[in-house]
């Protein structure tokens, strides 16, 4: 019994006559093609695995030779004399040499030895890296940049500048190049940081700021006002982490406490809380400003303010801390209580708050902090 059905708009006998046999052919061809391709890939993979095993064996041998006590590398690291044998190596050995040098660089604490490692890397890989920077493979370019950064190959800086101008340069590559600039104190970096359209995360900006050499750092602080806001916040955050103590930078931080831009205010509060120093004039000005506007400040700003008051002590701040211990946000109450505990007779003051503060939450947080302090004493 055959039924007439519509198949893709055509009238056919049964499921096909022509239609399904055509489908069988096409599907068969696809499946067969896929299967044959997979088998071919499988064979290629087996062959490639064998090759890789052999290469790895050679690399291991080269690695062991380089790490041996009487190897030319050991002699070089001890005496500083490069033998041609070290530089005249094949690709397999080059990979091993690179790995040995990276490992030595990571483990070595001796400045002279690190300098020698970098010099050797420059001699051995300079040309190779220059070529690899032009590779069409993104991962190869990124790896090369990471190695250049590790070995601090300053001779490649002009090539990196050229690379950054290329349209091929991705956001990640650009960031690593800027990091290399920062590490090597390349002045060009300041110009790059001043650009408004730099696509970088806050964390990436901060990484760069933390790597800056003293000379470039000075220049960046000089140009602070011209930096984009994101970079400005990173500079202030870097001041916190670098724990700057110079008058010029402290003055900048104190000035930022009264900026219109909230984020900069928050970062400067946080930085000063970390540094723990502030001029008396600024303390008074800050008290006045916060006395009037405490309630309208953002949660994060209040939090940082509470932290700052614990690090920079003055009698006038205690009243503010008592007020902040009744803040609607838990973290702020906690921070204020911690800050109060850092004052002379802080524990006594907390006990007093726990007893007599009119706000229930302030009393609770004081009790909680007293208990935590007890725990911290037990830990110590």
């Amino acid at each position, binding site marked *: *019994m055959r039924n007439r059905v519509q198949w893709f708009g055509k009238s056919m006998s049964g499921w096909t006559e022509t239609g399904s046999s055509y489908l069988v052919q096409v599907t068969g061809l696809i499946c067969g093609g*896929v299967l044959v391709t997979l088998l071919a890939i499988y064979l290629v993979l087996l062959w490639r695995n064998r090759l890789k095993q052999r290469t790895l064996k050679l690399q*291991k041998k080269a690695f062991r030779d380089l*790490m041996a006590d009487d190897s030319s590398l050991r002699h070089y690291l001890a005496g500083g004399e490069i033998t041609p044998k070290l530089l005249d190596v094949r690709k397999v050995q080059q990979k091993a040499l690179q790995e040995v040098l990276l490992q030595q660089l990571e483990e070595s604490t001796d400045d002279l030895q690190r300098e020698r490692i970098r010099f050797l890397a420059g001699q051995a890989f300079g040309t190779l890296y220059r070529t690899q920077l032009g590779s069409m493979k993104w991962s190869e370019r990124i790896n090369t940049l990471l190695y250049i950064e590790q070995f601090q190959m300053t001779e490649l800086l002009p090539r990196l500048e050229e690379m950054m101008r290329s349209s091929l340069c991705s956001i990640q590559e650009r960031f690593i190049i800027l990091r290399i600039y920062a590490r090597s104190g390349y002045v060009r970096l300041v110009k790059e940081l001043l650009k408004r359209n730099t*696509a970088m995360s806050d964390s990436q900006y901060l990484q760069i700021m933390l790597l800056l050499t003293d000379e470039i750092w000075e220049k960046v602080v000089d140009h602070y006002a011209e930096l984009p806001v994101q970079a400005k916040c990173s500079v202030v955050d870097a001041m916190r982490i670098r724990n700057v103590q110079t008058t010029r930078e402290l003055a900048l931080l104190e000035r930022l406490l009264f900026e219109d831009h909230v984020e900069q205010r928050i970062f400067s509060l946080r930085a000063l809380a970390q540094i723990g120093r502030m001029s008396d004039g600024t303390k008074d000005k800050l008290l006045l400003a916060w006395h009037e506007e405490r309630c309208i400040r953002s949660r994060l700003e209040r939090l940082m303010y509470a932290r700052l008051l614990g690090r920079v002590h003055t009698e006038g701040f205690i009243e503010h801390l008592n007020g902040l211990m009744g803040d609607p946000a838990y973290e702020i109450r906690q921070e204020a209580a911690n800050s109060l505990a850092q004052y002379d007779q802080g524990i006594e003051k907390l006990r007093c708050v726990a007893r007599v503060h009119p706000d229930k939450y302030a009393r609770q947080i004081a009790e909680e902090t007293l*208990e935590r302090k007890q725990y911290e004493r037990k830990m110590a």
Partner: protein
Amino acid sequence: MNERWLELLQSLILLCYKGIWIYLVVVIIACIWLFLAAVRTMVRKKDLDLLHYDEVLNEALAPPVSVLLPVHNRENTIIADVNHLLDIHYGCYEVIVINDGSTDDTMERLMEVYKLSTVKSKIHYSSIGQAVGEIRGAYRSLRYDNLVVVDKQHGGHSDALNAGIRVSQYPYFASIGPTTMLDKYAFVKIMKPIMAALPDEEIIACGGRLELANSQKVSCSRFHIQSEKPVADLPKSPLLMMQRIEYIRAFLISGLGLVRYNINTLLFTSEAFGLFKKSYVMEVGGYNPDPRMAHLELIMRLHKHMKQIKGRGRIVYIDDPVCSTKVPESCAGLHQQRIRWHRQLTNTMWEQREMAGNPKYGWMGMVTIPYFIMVELIGPVLEIGTLLLLFIGLLLPFVENSLLVVLGMLLLLYGSLLSAAVILFEVWLARRRYTAREVTRLFLYALSESFWFRPMNNIFRIHGLIKALWSLREHGDSGRSAYSGLRADK
């Protein structure tokens, strides 16, 4: 029965064949497309040196994370698990162990080994807008200042996680599944996209590749030459091998494939490990404590929330292995697991049904959820249906054998051939070393998938689907409203 009815019946049966044919073609195209998208991502990053993670090792830069470990009756393994977490390589993190009403000596073991000291007043409680099981006590360790233990009434995994979120103090938290072993560098890897997020984007959740813990250790070493590439160490059991293949396939197609185009379409489902931005999870009310819901439900609510607030938050997935988890080693265990997964998937899709096909939710509503429904939810029914149609077709004189051959080949292409392709790609790309024997084993097992594992797995999942539909029919929305009530309490 007259001839007219017979004709109608025949037409109906033939329509089923057509429908199945169209379904298979569509899902094959979708899966191949997603696979190719994942291939592009992976190929780009192939051979990337692990040096690129170094920036995350800087303590001053890496955001602090709270690690939540819910435990229930784990007295034998708890100390090893907590020690493993305390040994993680990351700048600043706290470990919060939530004892979810254990009836064995789990709590006593914790007290004894870590010298727990009671926190009499309450420790930091963030409100997540829903009630959690009663917290009996909170403790801090006198040996490790980053270890907190919360002892609570039994309320299930999600409820325990909610309690952990409330107690946590850092802006990000990571949830750990009951059988998860984290890679020592898991946080270094998973925090990388968060640290690299540009000013116009924000990462609100991040998942990573999951490996099988039954046979191998996840490891990562930068210096491969001297330390030897980690070996693949494949399991002996066929069931474990097939699950390994299944995980790799799911990781590439449903994980990486969906994040390729930066269109925020990821629905990563693993309860084994996930990292979240706490503030957003709190805004959506935390985990749904209903044990019938999958973790996926939280992800769906986060997506929904982002659309509602017009946020720029994204959920991402990373291609490096971050943890390993134990999988069932017996058919019975697998059966139970798949029933549970499928029930959770069904209930979750039902709970968030308004998102399906809703243009208001963009790519998520129009692409990902329909894809999940078609491939993950009702896929098993359609695949088993295809097999049945194949066998029935042999008995029906009006169905051409050639059509049956076409359907059979499509099933093979969708199951075995796609898995084999995925496996070969994995071997080509892997950071770990595969021997020729292992490659051959993986390849052959992948080719055998359509003939035993896939049908078996699909039958288990259909069982889960039936149970879920049955319970939905029985309870209707009553179960949901009970939990909604609990959530609305606060």
